[in-house]
């Protein structure tokens, strides 16, 4: 239950107007800090929700695929240049961001991840890295200003950080082919 408290604290903190102002004034922080932190809020409060509604998660998201799809849809949605602009200019979209990222991305992510098979996890990670490379490329190579609220230089910076995120995921994927975590866990318990 401690996690719920931390989750809610983080949620409230992110909702403070000055925090919103700072986290949305720089494009990279908006996409690669505020948004992931909102997902983390959802991740932290998942155990609480699961203890309250155990049947909901076990019947509707038994093998984790519906939840994972929902997670991907929400993540891709917030990568569209327009949604980032409108989160700043349209209040309803901003509210949707604060609801969708914790509850429709963070919660299903935590609920689904451990239900996935090793292969399923690899597929998701591959998808994510491909998405990040595409989005990164889009922001780096676009000759036009994609977001009206951000400068082109910031757009390029965001593109590169997305590409690096993809690289990070790819490195993780490759190491997971050679290093088997379960072997270490077994060694620990012995």
């Amino acid at each position, binding site marked *: 239950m401690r996690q719920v408290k931390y989750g809610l604290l983080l949620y409230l903190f992110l909702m403070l107007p000055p925090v919103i102002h700072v986290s949305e004034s720089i494009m990279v922080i908006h996409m690669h800090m505020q948004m992931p932190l909102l997902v983390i809020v959802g991740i932290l409060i998942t155990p609480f929700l699961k203890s309250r509604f155990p049947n909901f998660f076990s*019947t509707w998201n038994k093998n984790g695929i519906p939840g994972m799809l929902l997670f991907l849809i929400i993540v891709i949605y917030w990568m569209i240049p327009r949604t980032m602009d409108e989160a700043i200019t349209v209040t309803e979209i901003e509210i949707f961001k604060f609801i969708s990222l914790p509850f429709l991305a963070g919660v299903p992510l935590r609920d689904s991840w451990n239900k996935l098979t090793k292969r399923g996890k690899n597929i998701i990670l591959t998808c994510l890295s491909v998405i990040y490379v595409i989005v990164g490329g889009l922001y780096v190579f676009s000759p036009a200003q994609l977001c009206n609220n951000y400068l082109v230089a910031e757009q390029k910076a965001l593109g590169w950080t997305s590409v690096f995120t993809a690289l990070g995921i790819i490195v993780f994927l490759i190491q997971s082919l050679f290093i088997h975590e379960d072997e270490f866990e077994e060694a620990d318990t012995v």
Partner: protein
Amino acid sequence: MKKPQKQTIAILIVFLFGFVLFFIGTDGFKAYTAETARLLQLEKERPEFPQVTLEDSKGRNYTFNEFAGKYVMLTFVYTECTDVCPQLEMNLAEVYNQIPKEYIGTDIVFLSISFDPDRDDIEALQKYSHFFNSDEETWRMTRIEDKQELQNLLDAFGVIVIPDNSGGFTHNSAFYLVDPEGKLVEVMDYTKTKEAATKVHTILTGEGEGM
């Protein structure tokens, strides 16, 4: 058998939700950036040119009524801009030259409006006129001194201007065509001068036949 069915339903619901979300979020898969959404919105709304006092490179002051009964092709610039604006103005000059002479001045007027009235005084506007070879009559360089009036206009036409750290501005650029009643009718891609000229020409000849 019951449980896997629920899961299939869940997958379908998620897909449906995703479809609706993206459909609404992009105006039916048409607008992926706020800029395209803005253009779609402007073409629907057709906002009116607000009441402002323009000051041109000859030091004349007038409101937008000066151009009543004529189409006005306009752009938003600032003269110290080194990247987009010169390109925008060169392209505007290209459009200007492609419109048959008989329309210029009588049916259509070209207008460049500066959103940096602090630095763009009459002298700067004059320099800018000479630089682009405008005649200061059928293509006028103007500024709006009153900051509130300027902001009203930028808001109405959806122009977003952000100061950058080096004393310049980042701003969205386009050709705006205002009809003889003062309503915005077209927002055109400033990089496609031929297309814009053809469009303006068609509108002008259509108007001529109508009269």
